[in-house]
């Protein structure tokens, strides 16, 4: 889940949007590097921002200076990213904590990095799900134009699911690891100061941050409210439609997968009984005892293989489907924010145009700011969309080939069991024949 290195810096406001090449886009053309204008001067690391600009220019410049090769092979962004990645994160080692108030699980979050934004090259902290949730909220609010990867579900029905069972913890941990890796591989999100805090600070003081954030969030909403969207660009409309259909298909696939698991488990129950009947028959036979026991043994082996297949399915396949459903929700909310942003711009523009016609005042600054916002938003979104699509293709290819591999594996196990039985029985046959002729 990594992305290509940023290809160029975008400047907003001085060029029409069509000419601006976003650092996050997968375009092949020779990209120009321009340092951002004074509008961006206020941006430095660590400040939560309202506007949707890319990461601070200084850090991007640093990265570009580190990278010699700008021409990335877009066909294999993962291999290329591996070479240039300078931030590695891992989530592992779940531990249970029991206190008087509550019981919860913490995970070890390890970081290795060569980035200058980090004081040390290595960090190791313990985080619980709440902390990841905090990080996500912070990211969403501070980078509203970007797609934030999803977290595994927050709430689980206490009666139905055991929050402390090995399987549940394992599945959740893998999802948290994926989340963090996706953020760390994102060229903009990975430089977010909250991520830095999350990875490095021993004790996250969350309450303060949240309060501040909610104020900011509200003001954004207040500004954007009250304007209607005139015409959504076709590509964003298409994205929305795609997401709706994709969501539907994922839901269907999840339901089918669950139904298969159920049917398979019922099949397994019957198959087990089937195996035991052969073994009990063997008890009343002489010559046939070995073949019958053999068949019973093969059936039992197949049962074991089937159980493994089912486990594999629930551990590897269902979580990915769920993750993408959450991802889709995330993406849709970003699209909505973009629409709001565009609506605001159009509203202000309309008002300004009317005023301009009346008293020939120049285009007010706010309108231009709005326009910038929209254009940056669109660019960020498009770039994130491409990346998301690419991740999706990779993930689902892995998923489907994984499914196929597991199935092949399963049938190989069964086949081997039956083949060894035949060898056993045929050996006995030749054994008997030679003893007869002797």
């Amino acid at each position, binding site marked *: 889940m990594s992305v290509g290195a940023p290809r160029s810096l975008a400047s907003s406001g001085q060029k029409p949007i069509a000419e601006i090449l976003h650092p996050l886009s997968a375009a092949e053309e020779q990209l120009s590097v321009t340092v951002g204008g004074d509008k961006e001067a206020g941006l430095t690391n660590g400040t939560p921002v309202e506007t949707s600009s890319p990461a601070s220019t200084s850090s991007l410049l640093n990265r570009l200076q580190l990278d010699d090769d700008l021409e990335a092979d877009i066909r294999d962004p993962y291999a290329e990213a591996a070479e240039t990645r300078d931030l590695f994160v891992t989530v592992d080692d779940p531990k249970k904590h029991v206190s008087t108030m509550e019981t919860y699980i913490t995970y070890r979050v390890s970081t290795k990095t060569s980035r200058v934004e980090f004081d040390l090259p290595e960090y190791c902290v313990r985080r619980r799900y709440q902390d990841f949730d905090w990080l996500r909220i912070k990211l969403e609010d501070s980078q509203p134009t970007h797609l934030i990867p999803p977290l595994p579900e927050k709430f689980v029905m206490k009666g139905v699911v055991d929050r402390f069972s090995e399987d549940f913890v394992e599945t959740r941990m893998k999802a948290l690891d994926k989340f963090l890796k996706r953020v760390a591989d994102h060229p903009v999100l990975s430089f977010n100061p909250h991520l830095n805090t999350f990875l490095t600070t021993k004790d996250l003081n969350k309450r303060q941050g949240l309060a501040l954030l909610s104020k900011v969030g509200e003001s954004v909403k207040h500004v954007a409210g009250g304007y209607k969207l005139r015409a959504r660009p076709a590509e964003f409309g298409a994205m929305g439609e795609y997401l709706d259909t994709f969501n539907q298909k994922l839901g269907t696939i999840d339901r*089918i997968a669950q139904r298969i698991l159920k049917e398979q488990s019922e099949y397994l129950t019957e198959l087990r009984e089937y195996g035991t009947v052969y073994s009990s028959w063997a008890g009343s036979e002489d010559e046939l005892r070995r073949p019958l026991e053999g068949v019973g043994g093969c059936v039992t082996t197949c049962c074991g293989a089937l159980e493994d297949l089912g486990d594999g399915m629930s551990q590897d396949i269902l979580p990915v489907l769920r993750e993408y459903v959450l991802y889709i929700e995330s993406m849709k909310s970003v699209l909505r924010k973009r629409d709001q942003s565009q609506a605001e711009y159009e509203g202000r523009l309309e008002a300004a145009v009317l005023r301009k016609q009346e008293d020939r005042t120049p285009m007010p600054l706010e309108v231009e700011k709005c326009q910038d916002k929209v254009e940056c938003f669109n660019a960020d979104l498009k770039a994130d969309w491409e990346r998301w699509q690419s991740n999706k293709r990779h993930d689902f*290819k892995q998923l489907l080939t994984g499914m196929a591999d597991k199935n092949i594996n399963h049938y190989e196990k069964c086949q081997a069991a039956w083949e060894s039985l035949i060898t056993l029985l045929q050996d006995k046959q030749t054994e008997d024949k030679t003893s007869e002729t002797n």
Partner: protein
Amino acid sequence: MADCGSNEEVAVIFNTDITSTESENNLINTMVEIGATLLRKMEINVTEAEKRTGKNTVNMQETYTVYLIETRSAETVPEGGTPTTPDTLWRRYSEFELLRTYLLVTYPYIIIPPLPEKRAEFVWHKMSADNLDPDFVERRRVGLENFLLRVASHPVLSNDKIFFLFLTEEKEWREVVLETGFQDKVDSRLKSLSAMFRVKNPDKRFTALKHYSDELNSVISQLLRVRAKVADRLYGVYKVHGNYGRVFSEWSAIEKEMGDGLQSAGHHMDTFAASIDDILEEEEHYADQLKEYLFYAEAVRSVCRKHELIQYELEMVAQDLVSKKQQKEELATGTVRVFSLKGMTSKLFGQESQEQRESRLAALEQSTREGEETLKERNTECQEFVRTAWEDIGRFKEQKDRDLREALISYAIMQISMCKKTKGEDDRSAEARTELSI
């Protein structure tokens, strides 16, 4: 009249009361070969099944199936020659039943091969239990052929005239069978039941055999029942996978790069789901092999029951003889050993005359002698029954071990080919999925 072949190598054993028409039909040789069976000289096939309608015994229209029996001399065809056209006749299931009942009564010491089931039992949900269903008819055809081959290869049964006529004489066979009067020899169920409970000195070997046949019956029934449930569940698993086919196809419509890969994944799922029909159809053949031995268990039980009856009657005769001897002794010596009403009345109401006593003694002498003869006969009968029965039981045991071992091996081979086929599908599917370009 069927012509069984115009060559002198046909050698069968017949009763000497052969009719002139039969002898006209080239049944010239009555050479006896030790251990010869009909099958060595005659090829037997049940090749076709056809629907007929006709009036039954209560004068109502009914539809039934008839089966075509083809017979042909088994001599090798000379080079370049055409094989002789077979003789054919049609038989319906009830005629097979009649033949079998005849054999059961005529050879009570032989384990008579069973017929395929009258009605479809142990079905899993998809199979129709309808006797006119083409799959059922086909499997019955195979079962009937198997029955004929079993009888024709039996050292004792294959020499039976009625059996030969069954294969060669279409129209008048029924009358000939009924003329033998075999139906009078059928033991009543009640007689058999009472014998079972009253035998004083049961033969240990037969008791063990009865016990074994009960166990075989029970375990094969259980196996067939569970197998049907397993088949039902497996069918469900495969069919649900088919649902993937449609959703993958729908999903591929909204994808650009992934479209082709998803389409082929969808097709693979459809093929996979459809493959279950053939798999389960093949398994029915295995189920039929098991069913044959399920019914064979009943035939074994029949022989045991007959033995019980013979043993019981032997004991009755022996007991009868003992009581007659005692009476004789009493009469001769005047001592009363056993209380008898007659003895008491004669004591009370006066002695009988010397003449009367002597005539009674003479009558008893004769009766005793007759009883001794009967006992000897019955004893011989019983011993002969036991001897011939154990010969056949030995033969049956070897046949059973051989056949069931083969059935288990071919079941294993079937499982292997099923694994290979499904894996092959999966290999292709994995290739298809690599088409999912990023």
